[in-house]
């Protein structure tokens, strides 16, 4: 379960055909770019949740 959660962000980065698109744009950023940038804090959050789960 822990490893599945941890691998989710990595798996999302592999969905290249899904995010290889200019639209929808966000603050002028094409989708390709903002999707990858948003994925970074999302990955950090997932790791944090796993960390919290382990600590309890």
């Amino acid at each position, binding site marked *: 379960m822990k490893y599945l959660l*941890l691998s989710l962000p990595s798996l999302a980065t592999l969905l290249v055909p899904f995010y290889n698109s200019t639209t929808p744009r966000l603050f002028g950023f094409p989708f390709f770019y903002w999707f990858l940038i948003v994925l970074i804090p999302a990955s950090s959050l997932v790791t944090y949740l796993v960390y919290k789960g382990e600590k309890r």
Partner: protein
Amino acid sequence: MIDHLNWMAAGVFIAFFLLVTILGFVAAHWKRGDLNDLNEWGLGGRRFGAWISWFLIGGDIYTAYTVIAVPSVVYAVGAYGFFAVPYTIIIYPLLYATFPRLWAVAHRKNYMTAADYVLGRYGNNWLELAVAFTGIFATMPYIALQLVGMERVIDALGFQGHGIMSHLPLTIAFVILALYTYRSGLRAPAMIAFVKDIMIYIFVLAAIVIVPMKLGGYGAIFDAAGAALAKKAAVSGGKIAAGLLLSPKQMLPFITLAIGSGLALLMYPHSMTGMLSARSGNTIRINAVALPAYSVMLALIALMGYMALAAGVHVTNPQDAVPHLILAVFPDWFVGFCFAAIAIGALVPAAIMSIGAANTFTRNIWKPFIHPAMNSQEEAVLAKLMSLIVKVGALAFILFVPTKFALDLQLLGGMWMAQVFPAVIFGLYTRWFNGWALLAGWATGMVLGTWLAWTPAAWVPVHAIFGSNLTVYNGVTAFVANVLVAAVLSALLPNTALDETRAEDYADLPETAVAK
């Protein structure tokens, strides 16, 4: 030689350089320890808490080369250069899952390098030697690349020289680096990393706010860069795939470069040095959560390639794109600041890399094969000496080998490093693999990957599989072959070699044992 020097920028640059030089020597007195002991010199006494580790590991992974090379590829071809972002998304969950286990066993058994661990786990000297050799071999061009990054900014300051004289500033900087690393060990880059990262964050924040203000916002930057790249692709007659999005043919290379680089990065001796100097496994876990802050910065740095395109920066060598963007948009004093940030960003990883390689040489090549009776003091003396030799080697590389060659070797280096992943990381979970089988797998991966990369004209990072149109990073192809060979042979060979670790060695140490 100095007719075109930007005096204001050069003055600020030199001032910051002097500051970190002083810090580098002062660091010897920080968190006091006996620097004649390899544990203290080479791993900072394994006492670095979450904050120091965050700066140290961040300074280790995000280097001058990152600031120069990643945006240079984005500048040259567009979206393809962005593979560095998925790559950094992959590594931190991997770090979280695996490295606390490695830290725990390394702490209990006093392992200082990946090869130390592999020897303990598989009891196979030759596998240890293979892991050590791979690490040292892959590190040299990596250090050389830090120097390339440093040389790009010294060049952009307006320093012009001919022949060997053109490398004079770089040589001076490097001699200083070599001296304080020799004296202070890992404490020096750990202390300088604070200064370096704060400077880089200031530089990046300024760039991502000020450049779009001058160029009409991010939408305008992407549009202008997209048009410039489309024009470039059209002029080349479709030979160069450049654009804001990946062409269908680039998708698989993009994915596999990210995966392969991810497998390789944590295996480098300097990554091990950074991680094993942490105070506890928990320090590493906290860092796996916090280090992605650097990845956000990396993504923004990558976008500077587009900012350079949109600002109309024209350079023949794409590696000059970021320095010339900085020259185009910032006042001179801030140019000096930014360039100093990049140059210091070369010193930190170069120091850690030379320490990592020196630790590995001492512990895994010299000690077992030449002089088994070494004590920790003798180890420290040899490692200090080796850190000098490694740096002189890297400097010679820059002075005598064209830098184009260094870049190609770096791509090879990543492919090589990925080949020790099975021995190190799989070993944290299972002892099913046989040491000899892992060695055979390693050899298969090294030979296959190097062979795939070789073309008469240059070393290429990707290769079409079985002549199909599926193009894959050599590091991944070689890794798969490596694992297959290791698995098949492990199933056949009896597994009787001594394993000095036990299952409980991989669990976290109790907090009380870690406190000091």
